[in-house]
């Protein structure tokens, strides 16, 4: 008789302990930035009965949903929450010109009766803020910006840690010591990613360089191809990028299949299919983690049009907002397992370790709620050799989101 109760009780206890252990501990907010403690309440209240209350969430995208990059990833997130919550209705507008966003916001609010609007390009920032002031009882969330209002929050899932991991692999795989980066716009987000990537590269390969080419566009396959081919012609044999198409991966695959190996790292969406022989890994995003959290809290009345002034989501590895890999669940293309295991480096703390193991060790450290490792830990010098981060210090969130200098090893200039 006791046994029948005992077993479930023990199981429940274990489960409760495990859950408690999984709860991320709050990390102190860096100076200058107020972060709101983000807890994952979604799991707890998923079983909300189909209520009479409905919520309509609308999404404004800057690119086409078929771009296999930024916009595609956001739309995947939208589809997931749309299916997940029976009380949720969603709508979207794609390829919205940045000059026209105010009109789309007006229409979504007035004609389509949206309760929450997500705008997913930093160029939509001013327009979103204007709409937030115009419609004080509606809720707005702007992705990748820094302006907030009582009814407008911000959110971002950031890749800098993942770029760093990609950099470790790039540094191990390059033969020429020249690595290329096709970059969209020279804004802090992209600069941060290039820097993190270069820090990874130089940790494994202190003499390698990262050459940067700006294409001044988020989506321009033609320019991305030009930039990638130009760098390959100059001896670059590993490519990373920020652009919303798989073009760079395709270029690397073409060269590899012709007998000149060029490796690449996918960006934003699973791009493994475009580079089966040449794509090593990449960066993947889970926007749905942020969307479910926001929408659930709006639905439950935790977020109101009056309390979003300080709501800023910054989801990184620890929050499972991003993932390492070229396809979900595949952190490293199995083809590159052996080459990465063959390269050994000596880490002051970890001793001699293969790059393959180093990647997973760092991944584990950065995923840990206590964030045991951060790529932007000093000493870090800039391109001029000047020390920018003192030994043992980490860049704050504010410094990360406003970064406007390149680390040592990056070739290229920031427009000034």
């Amino acid at each position: 008789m006791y046994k029948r109760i005992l077993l479930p009780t023990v199981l429940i206890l274990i489960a409760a302990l495990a859950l408690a252990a999984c709860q991320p501990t709050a990390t102190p907010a860096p100076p200058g930035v107020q972060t709101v403690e983000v807890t994952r309440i979604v799991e707890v209240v998923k079983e909300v009965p189909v209520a009479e209350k409905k919520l309509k969430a609308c999404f404004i995208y800057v690119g086409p949903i078929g771009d296999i990059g930024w916009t595609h990833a956001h739309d995947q997130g939208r589809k997931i929450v749309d299916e997940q919550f029976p009380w949720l209705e969603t709508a979207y507008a794609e390829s919205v010109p940045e000059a026209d966003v105010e009109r789309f916001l007006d229409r979504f609010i007035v004609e389509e009766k949206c309760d929450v609007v997500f705008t997913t390009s930093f160029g939509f920032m001013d327009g979103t803020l204007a709409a937030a002031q115009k419609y004080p009882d509606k809720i707005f969330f702007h992705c990748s910006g820094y302006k907030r209002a009582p009814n407008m929050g911000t959110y971002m899932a950031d890749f800098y840690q993942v770029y760093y991991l990609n950099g470790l692999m790039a540094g191990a795989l390059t033969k020429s010591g020249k690595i290329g980066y096709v970059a969209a716009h020279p804004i802090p987000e992209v600069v941060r990613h290039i820097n993190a990537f270069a820090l990874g590269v130089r940790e494994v390969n202190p003499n390698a360089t990262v050459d940067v080419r700006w294409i001044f566009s988020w989506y321009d396959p033609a320019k991305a191809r030009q930039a990638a081919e130009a760098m390959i012609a100059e001896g670059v044999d590993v490519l990373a990028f920020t652009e919303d198409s798989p073009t760079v991966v395709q270029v690397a695959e073409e060269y590899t299949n012709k007998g000149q190996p060029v490796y690449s790292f996918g960006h934003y969406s699973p791009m493994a299919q475009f580079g089966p022989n040449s794509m090593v890994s990449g960066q993947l995003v889970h926007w749905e983690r942020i969307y479910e959290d926001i929408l659930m809290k709006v639905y439950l009345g935790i977020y109101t049009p009056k309390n979003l002034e300080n709501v800023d989501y910054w989801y990184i590895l620890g929050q499972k907002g991003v993932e390492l890999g070229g396809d979900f669940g595949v952190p490293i293309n199995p083809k590159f397992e052996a080459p990465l295991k063959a390269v050994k480096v000596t880490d002051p703390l970890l001793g001699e370790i293969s790059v393959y193991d180093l990647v997973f060790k760092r991944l584990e450290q950065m995923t840990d709620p206590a964030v045991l490792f951060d790529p932007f830990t000093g000493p870090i010098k800039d391109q001029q050799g000047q020390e920018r981060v003192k030994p043992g210090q980490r860049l704050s969130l504010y410094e990360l989101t406003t970064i406007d200098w390149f680390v040592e090893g990056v070739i290229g200039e920031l427009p000034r």
Partner: protein
Amino acid sequence: MNWVSIRLEKRLDTPRWLNAVTPVLSVLAALVFIAVLFYILGVNPLVAYRRIFMGAFGSLYGLSETLTKAIPLILCGAGLAISFRARVYNIGAEGQLLVGAIAATWVALFVPGIPDPLRLPAMFVAGALAGALWALIPGLLKAKLRQDEVLTSLMLVYIASELVNHLVYGPWKGAQEWGFPYTDKFPPSAIIPHLGTTRIHYPTLIIAVLAAILAYYFIQRTRWGFEIRVTGENPEAARYAGMNYLRTVLLVIGISGALAGIAGVGEVAGIHGRLRYPQGISPGYGFTAIIVAWLARLNPLAVLLTGFLISGLLVGGDAIQLALNLPAATVHLFNGVILLFVLSGDLFTRYRVRIEFPARMAPAVAVRPGVEVKE
């Protein structure tokens, strides 16, 4: 032998009514064509058109947005109409708009000592001058060196666009903008006032309407206008008659550049309140204005109407996405088809189409044995 033979005969003279009717019929034909596309996409074309019309003209909001977007289209379109009349094909209104925006930003943020009430007028003058000067480059290249202005003016769009990029990413990047490519906000004295809560920056709207009316008067009623028309009809004859070709080319392209520059001032000072990167300032107004001018058959007064209508099409086009859930590419398709039909419709004003049925006239002799004739 062909069943039907279609021949084109050049018209010596185009009747007035045809000039007016052709664009209307062309647009109607385009709408019928697009209706078929809507049908294939699974949307009732009548419902679709109703939504587009209502989106643009069916509410005060839609109407105000249509007017807002019509401002740059009318300004650029009126200028292009004059330029195209002289057969000076200035394709670079977009670039002239951007340099106008740059000049306005410079006056708004970096020129000290202008009294507040004079700030906006100074911005408009600077924008117009900058646009005109930018347009004079392809004008001079055409008149002096016989360089094709279609290419040169188009290339200058990209240069203007890179110039804006350089400024907002570089020296003009705002101090308060976290490293994002925006200049700082304009001071209040440099912001064009709006009509109520709409986005209609009405001073620019007034300038646009006046510009279109003056442009019409200029081209139809003045001696320079006459020279422009003659130069357009027959450059050789104009030169023979002692008309100054250089002056005419520079005049028309300068005017169109100035008007585009004013449009740029309106966008930065009336809509955005700052300079930002090019795609953020204009979603291609300078290019769309080419359709506007052409649809107006290069009549600046008609530009008022076509600018308003094309703007309505763009604004109503939202409905294609928001209400009908069709992909955004449909909007571009929509606009492209209309331009294609309007441009091809032009053929009918210059040529007479003769359709003949030779088979009817020739008896059955022409039919090869074994082929059944169905009649």
